[in-house]
């Protein structure tokens, strides 16, 4: 449904061009939940913004194609933003207008994208609220009277109102409690299954990835490190970075007290000084000569790592 080919996003910085996203290609299939993981600065949010066409100067899409339902959208994203592709942001406190009731905000969104009369729109808005688990009586309430979880429900209602076929959820639960997080993810999953909407779920929580997504893409320094079915990626990671991320994630396990967590050595390189070759090689425990010289492409449609080239599935 959504295809991205060789996407580059450049940042002009003091006359030079820095690659924020480098040769990114992946697909999103209808009805699936695709997870995007990586450390901060890996380009997760940048990918989301590029798809929805919110890339502005000094950032620019310098190469590549974004194809949505067989149409190229990177040049006229306005026609798709909101109606066909919508976005849920991290902090529900900031993404609602504090001066207007949630009803007004819902009706406004609905009438911008669907040709509804006022009454119809109100009717529809109320049914949406019901669907996300908010009583219809709250239609005229202001955002500050809602808790964080309830606000995020309103934001989900807003995002789903125009019946988009793709929702980009940028860390939708990072600002919420664990129990609320579970409810929100469950709701998002249920609504998208019912409407056959695809989701791109951006998060850095491997636990959320494990429990929510069908496929997962691991980003590192603006490049795709690994992509595949969540079950396979988490159980049989092929890229050393994915493996490191999984091992660094603490697990609920009574016996982990006396052992130390695995830590990936070093930090992610600054975008200004991404090394030649594989961007991960400086932190990689098993890099070979080739890693330092040539940047690996995605091999076996799975992971960008030269180790996959000669030895098969050795990680």
């Amino acid at each position, binding site marked *: 449904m959504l295809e991205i080919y060789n996407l580059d996003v450049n940042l002009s910085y003091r006359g030079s061009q820095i690659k924020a996203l480098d040769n990114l290609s992946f697909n999103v299939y209808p009805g699936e939940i695709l997870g995007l993981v990586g*450390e*901060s600065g890996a380009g997760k949010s940048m990918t989301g913004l590029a798809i929805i066409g919110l890339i502005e100067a000094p950032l620019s899409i310098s190469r590549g194609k974004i194809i949505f339902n067989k149409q190229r959208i990177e040049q006229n994203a306005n026609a798709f933003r909101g109606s066909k592709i919508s976005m849920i942001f991290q902090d529900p406190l900031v993404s609602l207008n504090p001066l207007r009731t949630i009803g007004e905000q819902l009706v406004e969104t609905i009438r911008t994208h669907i040709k509804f009369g006022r009454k119809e729109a109100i009717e529809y808005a109320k049914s949406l609220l019901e669907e996300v688990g908010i009583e219809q009586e709250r239609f005229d309430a202001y955002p500050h009277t809602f808790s964080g979880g309830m606000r995020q429900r309103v934001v989900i209602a807003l995002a789903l109102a125009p019946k988009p076929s793709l929702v980009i959820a940028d860390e939708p639960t990072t600002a919420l*409690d*664990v*129990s*609320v*997080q*579970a409810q929100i*993810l469950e709701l998002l999953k249920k609504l998208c299954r019912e409407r056959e909407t695809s989701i791109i779920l951006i998060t*850095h*929580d*491997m*636990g*959320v*990835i*494990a*429990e*929510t997504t*069908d496929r997962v893409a691991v980003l590192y320094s603006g490049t795709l490190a690994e992509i595949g*079915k*969540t*079950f396979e990626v*988490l*159980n049989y990671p092929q890229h050393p970075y994915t493996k*490191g*991320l*999984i091992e*660094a*994630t*603490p*697990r*609920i*396990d*009574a016996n*982990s*007290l006396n*052992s*130390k*967590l*695995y*830590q*990936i050595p070093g*930090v992610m390189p600054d975008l200004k000084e991404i090394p030649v070759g594989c961007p991960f090689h400086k932190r990689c425990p098993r890099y070979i000569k080739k890693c330092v010289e040539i940047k690996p492409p995605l091999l076996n449609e799975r992971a960008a790592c030269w180790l996959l080239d000669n030895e098969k599935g050795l990680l």
Partner: protein
Amino acid sequence: MSFLLVNQLSRIFDLSEPWILRKIKGQQKKLLKAVDKVNFSIERGQTYALVGESGSGKSTIAMMVAGLIKPSSGFITIDGYNFFSPTIENNIKSSLRKSVQMIFQSPYASLNPRWRVGEVLKEPIKAFNLIESENGQKQRVCELLEQVGLSERDINKFPHEFSGGQRQRICIARSLASEPKLIICDEPTSALDVSVQAQVLNLLKDLQKQFSLTYLFISHDLAVVSTMANRIGVLKQGILVEEASPNKLFEKPEHDYTKMLLSAAPDIKNVSKIP
């Protein structure tokens, strides 16, 4: 005797309107029980974790242990001394202040952006009059930086030149400056990435061994807690509903609230099979 003892600790916040308005409107006092008769203790060199959702009173307890707000009833003793006791001597009070330090949630908000790292770390040394000479202070700062895995070269940098994980290391170094015995860690890694979180948690463990530190660890992430704590207390609306060792809590949780928290926590082990 336990190093930290919290006995029947309660804190009530008064949320009612001013007296005169209450009389006009005929309202009762509005009181919020933030912490309600909480009991727990920590042995020296151990880690006790408090878990619960926002609003459950975790941070209120932390602030009372740190001596920042006064308990409404009940008492806390650290190393046998009660900070809020009316008979406590001033020199004991100041040594208690030295021996309890805090690490806060966001390393972005807890460092002054205009201060160089050296000044940040010198502040507690000066405030507690630990080292008089300028040279000695500088030496101590370098030592602290090395203990948390930073280097002497970072002494003249500003906080914005560091990543989130490095900033949290600076905060840890600052809390170590007064050679504390108890460190209160208030969600020390929830603003950090997984890989960085692992580094910070490992550092906290190493330091605990090295200086036999006692931690009061506050978190809502059960996975993090399971790698850190010797004992875990579960808080719900100010009441300690369950307290157990990690073994027991994760294998046989008793209270419904604990069960709910456990089932809600996303765990990497629960990867769904291909449908």
